[in-house]
């Protein structure tokens, strides 16, 4: 076993490094030059010209958000959802921890324990949406089609926890009762003709 990791005793030092940034101007003249340089670049007028052009054409494509919303594709990756089993309405998540492992921004964490029926149970589950980059790996890796992406891309709320609470992510029970849970069709979903491609295991029953 490599011991290097244990020999570095400087606990304040992480994997951080300083980025090369141009020095800030300190004197008045320098500051003035920076203001001029930033303000009078040609880009400003390019933008203004586009606005002016579209205004006089009267052929506007702008959607009146939030009154109007574009339909989004079934594979769109917005805020995560936790699906329930069709048969029993219980949660699909088995606590395997693959989403936690694959998450490249390291924003998923779960606590598991053994429940009364000697099964593995997820006691707590969080996604830190502040870090999530919505890459979809968690949905792709999930063997139970439990964690998926939903269509809700409106990430504004007075409480950040609203999006990361396990209870909130689970499909509401009345949606289940109404048979209205939607399956995710993005990466990780079952592809068509899956049955034909599976080799059958012989069985003695």
């Amino acid at each position: 076993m490599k011991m290097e990791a244990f020999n570095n005793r400087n606990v304040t030092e992480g994997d951080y490094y300083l980025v090369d940034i141009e020095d800030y101007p300190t004197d008045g003249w320098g500051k003035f030059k920076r203001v001029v340089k930033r303000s009078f670049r040609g880009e400003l007028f390019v933008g203004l010209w586009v606005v002016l052009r579209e205004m006089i054409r009267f052929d506007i494509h702008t959607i009146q958000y939030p009154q109007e919303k574009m339909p989004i594709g079934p594979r769109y990756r917005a805020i995560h959802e936790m699906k329930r089993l069709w048969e029993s309405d219980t949660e699909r998540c088995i606590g395997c921890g693959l989403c936690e492992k694959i998450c490249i921004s390291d924003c998923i964490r779960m606590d598991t324990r053994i429940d009364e029926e000697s099964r593995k149970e997820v006691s707590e589950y969080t996604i830190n949406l502040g870090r999530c980059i919505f890459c979809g790996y968690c949905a792709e890796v999930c063997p139970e089609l439990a964690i998926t992406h939903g269509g809700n891309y409106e990430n504004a709320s007075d409480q950040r926890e609203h999006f990361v609470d396990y209870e909130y992510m689970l499909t509401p029970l009345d949606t289940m009762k109404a048979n209205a849970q939607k399956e995710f069709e993005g990466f990780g979903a079952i592809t068509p003709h899956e049955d034909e491609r599976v080799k059958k295991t012989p069985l003695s029953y």
Partner: protein
Amino acid sequence: MSKIVINIDGREVETQEGEYLLNAARANDIFIPAICYLTRCSPTLACRICLVEADGKQVYACNAKAKDGMNITTTTENIEKERRAIMEVYDVNHPLQCGVCDQSGECELQNYTLEMGVDSQHYTVKDVDRSSHDWGHLHYDPGLCIVCERCVTACKDMIGDNSLKTIARGADALDAEFKETMPKDAYAMWNKLNKSVIGLTNGTDVLDCTSCGECAAVCPVGALVDTQFMYKSNAWELRQVPATCGHCSAGCQISYDVKHTSIENPEDKIYRVMNEWNYVSLCGAGRYGYDYQNAGVTKDEVAFNAAVEAFKKADTIKFTSTITNEEAYLLQAMKEKFGFKLVNNEAKAFQTFLNDYSEVSGTKLYGSDLEKVHNSNFVVSIGSALKTDNPNARYALNNSMTVNKGAGLYFHPVKDPIIEGLGKSIMTVQHAPLQEEAALYLVLDLFADKEKLPSDIAEYLASFHSEKTITVTETIKEKVIEIVKEMKVNEETGEEEEVEVEKSKMVPKKVEKEVVVDDNKLLEILGADAKFMEALEKNLKKKDKFQLMVGADLYTHPNSKNLARLVAIVEKYTAFELTMIPPLTNSLGVALICELDDEATGYTLGYNTKADFTLSALGDGDLDMPAINQQEGTLTSINKRVNPTNAAIGYGGYELNDIANALGFDAEHVINYTVSLPTAAGFKAEEFDNLPNHYENDGTEVRGYVLENVAVKASDDESVEKFSDAKLEGSIIYLANPVRQFTDFTNKTTNLDEESGIYMSEEFLSNSDINAGDSVKVKTQNGELTAKVVSDNKIQGDIVVIPTFDSKLNSEALVENYRFATASIEKV
């Protein structure tokens, strides 16, 4: 054994004559798949996947021995077919619950299934009910079990509990068609697999063993799991911290598996302890007793200043041996600087014993170690309650008996069913306490070359021998001739007539005979049974590697000086090599580093022991200290090895080094002192960061360094005293811990839940009016204590065992020094 060269897949490989092919290949980084084989144990031949071709013949690499010039091919077309079929068979009816299985990817079934490229299944059999069992500290799921029998092998060949066995599965017979169509070995393996699952030998559904958990560690799949770890964490989330176990002197290599406590609590927590089970076996304390850290400590400046003041006015520092070498060095340096007295009774006794031993032997340390005990075939243990003083010494004894067809001789006053259960070839002698010298004399008498032995010892030994005439009843076969009448046809007349024929036959007959035999009084003194010599003679056949282990009963014995000299003489004049079992974790290190004093005087500071001002890693003192799992440092083990250990868990408070720095020392970390450990005592000037901590593929231990056994001046005086007849009689107590407990640190852990109290054997309880749970008062010359009675089925006989792991009991106050004492025991 001689070195030979064999050829594996075109590579010339050097190995030992008679080494198993699998081990030879592994030592040279050549891969041969194998599931059921455990290094250091005997081959099981359950999985058959290690098939190789040796000189054109298919053999199993795990039990085929290397011969000079052997040509080995690790894969052929046929072997590949066999291996694939074997893995397919293992996958038959294996539940697809890898997602929640606790093996979480560390699974050999998964690995080999992929390795053999199994992508489809050809075999099938109807499954039977294989629901899971809760065996107490272990959880067994037969559904996941591939019956490789590694758990059974480890328990039998290494641990010696013999708690597991294979039991009938009750499945349907395999389809006859498979016998024709399947590869041969795969079918044979499946046929056996389909008939068995793992069960307990005690017939119940709850384990009653020494709870080491080694079976769960060796399990290649998730069938056997520690109940406390079930569904707690995936293996890949855990960070391995290589360390050395801090509970006893064995100094086992362990890795603490660490992860954040929970979503809310980012503090590190130890989830489990893992080991390199091919090369080191843990006991229950090592495996489950990991959470003894001094948690939640912050820098308490007031207490720290008080501690510095206390150090300034202290006369004596009292401490226990559950500290690192570096801390011992610091204490010694403080003694030199400030003139403290250093008091540590258990290490002092060991140090004195070592010094007395050196006077005769001429070496600072004993000559052998547990590694050699593993490889020996005749082991004698004197003066140690092996199973609890040092579980690894017990494993070594058992391993030498099972794998090397060895035998053992165990001298101890307390009757121990675990030791007796190790096998048929262990002989136990329950001598009276204080008679350890007689046991050593007996070893001398039986094994020493009398010609070379100093004449006075030889004469003394001879004085125990006398000739006596005994009457033996022998059964001999005697030839008896008798005359039998037979009917015969007369050839001449053709008539039948009676003829007398002489016939001889052998008839067994009992004869009484008078024989002159040697009468060894020592045997009688020690209370060995009548058949002792006969049994010993049988056990000594074909034995060539002798090992002697001695323990703490000798160090604390009133005649310890004489015992130390005797031990040295045994080592010198017999074929025995010697290992001493240090009483506590780092007693050997402390004994080598510190100059210890006898008595505490004046204002006393205690480190992990109560005194006027107490520094404690247990969290109950005046200033908190880090526990061994929160510290870096080195520990000196029974194998004379200086093993490094790392901090598994963070610690926010002050440590001994901070106090030393406040007192004028200057070191950033306590491990800065590793390099200055005394070379005169055998330590090396090695930086802590350069100390490795791992095992090589061939089992070589690459951990820290081995102490140099420094030569010391020996006196020519080899005289030893005769032993006295003094022995303890009546009701006797013995200071020893129950299985899985060593110190207050093991007592503090959550998983080791042994009850503190007065341990009595079931036999003793049934013969007295005391019941388990009663409160009894134990009174000796030195003191008395009152505690609850605990019934212990791991001891037998009349000696009452009082543990030392619970300092609240203050059991040390009961005895003078020697671990045994006579006592009155009465119900209150």
